């Protein structure tokens, strides 16, 4: 990065050094390929049901443990929960053949089993974030492991009415847009392409965060948090080609998950098989995953105890606000 001349005394905002993230103490208890199952012990264990967190395939999981006071994981451990985070890591070209079924049966299911063995708990609270929530729903529908609670944050489930880029979806449906050849050639969807595509869908121009930074350039704590968040925003990871194509065709184009028509390794993903206590959360300022993609799940599951909440904030606000939101503390208290 070019070293621009600065006025004497002006703090250096953008440092060249790597900024550390993930401050909560943790231990890897299982690894598979690039994935790691992290264990974050409770500060003082008060709850019997541990958390099993499934993060998205699009970005890096450290957003859940960004900095002290800005970490949802820290919030869980401070309230007495043992936390297990399944971090899928950064796929490479050699992972091009990983499918959605592989993620469910070879990563999530064994990861959940490991968490159960390790925690000695009778059941788990499964929490899915964004696309990790979609995977959590698929897993919950086929799981043989005991899932007591299922919590979803901004998880896209129904792709019928995506409120943006409608002509692109139509072209995908009608064959006017064929990215499969290019995906096959690259093996994985490169991280830069993921970042570029998601940025076009949400905010192609994004200047206000820099102005906000300029306004608080003497606040070291804010600058550090800003840099960490910026690292996450720009830290997209490659997406395994096979899983991406399945996501496009089975989910976005054919919308099979919400229609109970999705099969993974010849096993039907029937949403009616989900009986865990369900909490579905969407946020008002989420341009990427709006309410209409999240809410329809609630009517499709068999859970007797199900709650849908719409709260203030953006796509990742809840993860970085620090601590646990009040509604989540209350909901979990009676069910853990």
């Amino acid at each position, binding site marked *: 990065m070019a070293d621009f001349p600065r006025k004497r005394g002006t703090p250096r905002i953008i440092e060249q050094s790597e900024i550390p993230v993930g401050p909560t103490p943790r231990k890897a208890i299982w690894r*598979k*390929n690039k994935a790691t199952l992290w264990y974050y012990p409770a500060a003082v264990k008060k709850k019997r049901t541990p958390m099993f967190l499934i993060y998205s395939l699009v970005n890096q999981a450290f957003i859940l443990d960004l900095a002290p006071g800005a970490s949802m994981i820290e919030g869980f451990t401070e309230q007495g929960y043992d936390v297990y985070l399944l971090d899928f890591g950064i796929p*490479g*070209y*050699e992972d*091009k*053949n990983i499918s959605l079924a592989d993620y469910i049966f*070879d990563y999530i299911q*064994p990861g959940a*089993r490991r968490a159960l*063995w*390790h*925690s*000695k708990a009778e059941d788990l609270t499964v929490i899915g974030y964004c696309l990790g929530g979609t995977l959590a729903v698929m897993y919950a529908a086929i799981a043989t492991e005991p899932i007591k609670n299922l919590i979803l944050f901004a998880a896209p489930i129904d792709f019928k009415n995506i409120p*943006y*880029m*409608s*002509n*692109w979806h139509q*072209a995908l449906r009608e064959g*006017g*847009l*064929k*990215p499969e*050849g*290019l995906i096959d*050639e*690259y*093996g994985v969807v490169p991280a830069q392409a993921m970042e570029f595509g998601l940025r*076009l*869908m949400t*905010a*192609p*121009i*994004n*200047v*206000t965060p820099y*102005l*906000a930074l*300029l*306004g608080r350039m003497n606040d070291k704590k804010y600058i550090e948090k800003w840099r960490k968040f910026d690292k996450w925003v720009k830290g997209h990871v490659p997406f395994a080609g096979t899983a991406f194509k399945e996501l496009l065709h089975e989910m976005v184009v054919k919308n099979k998950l919400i229609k109970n028509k999705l099969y993974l390794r010849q096993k039907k993903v029937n949403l009616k098989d989900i009986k865990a206590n369900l909490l579905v959360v969407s946020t008002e300022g989420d341009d990427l995953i709006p309410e209409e993609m999240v809410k329809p799940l609630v009517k499709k599951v068999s859970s007797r105890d199900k709650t849908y909440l719409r709260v203030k904030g953006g796509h990742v606000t809840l993860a970085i606000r620090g601590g646990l939101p009040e509604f989540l503390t209350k909901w979990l208290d009676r069910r853990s």
Partner: protein
Amino acid sequence: MSDKSMKLKDLTRLVANYEKDLNDFIKDKLNDNQVVALANTEMEKHLKKVRFLRRFSEIIAHQFNFPTRDDLANVSRLVMQLEDRLDHIEEMLIQTLGENGSIMEEDLQTIEGEANQQMNREEADLKAGEGEGEKNSLRNRVLETLSQLGKQAVKDSIQDALSQRGNLRG
């Protein structure tokens, strides 16, 4: 509040408003059938170039005896298959230990000790055959490395199983 920070706040508010309008405008323009068709055409052109480059690099790699990225990916997949098998063995061990409380940790340590002895014997045999020429030496080194890898993997599995069992017992 200083005048300077007020100006910045006003500017931020103003930019935020324009930014939203501008983003909506860009997204609206991008959501055009002509843009979609153009993107598809450019993607096809790009695919042709990437495919040509891959084939070219494969020919060069073949001539110079370099591994291609597919060769490396295949090796990685073999490693992943091995990892899967070990994982499966580890799961079976954990399950067995969980179900059968009569299996003592000492039994597992005995198994580990016997495995180590067997591998040490194999290592000694390999070292004894090192003088049989360069070809054999390379073969032995490869076998030795594989043996060490296997030994480590078995050790790790047993240790993981023991630690998981420790957790199960509480």
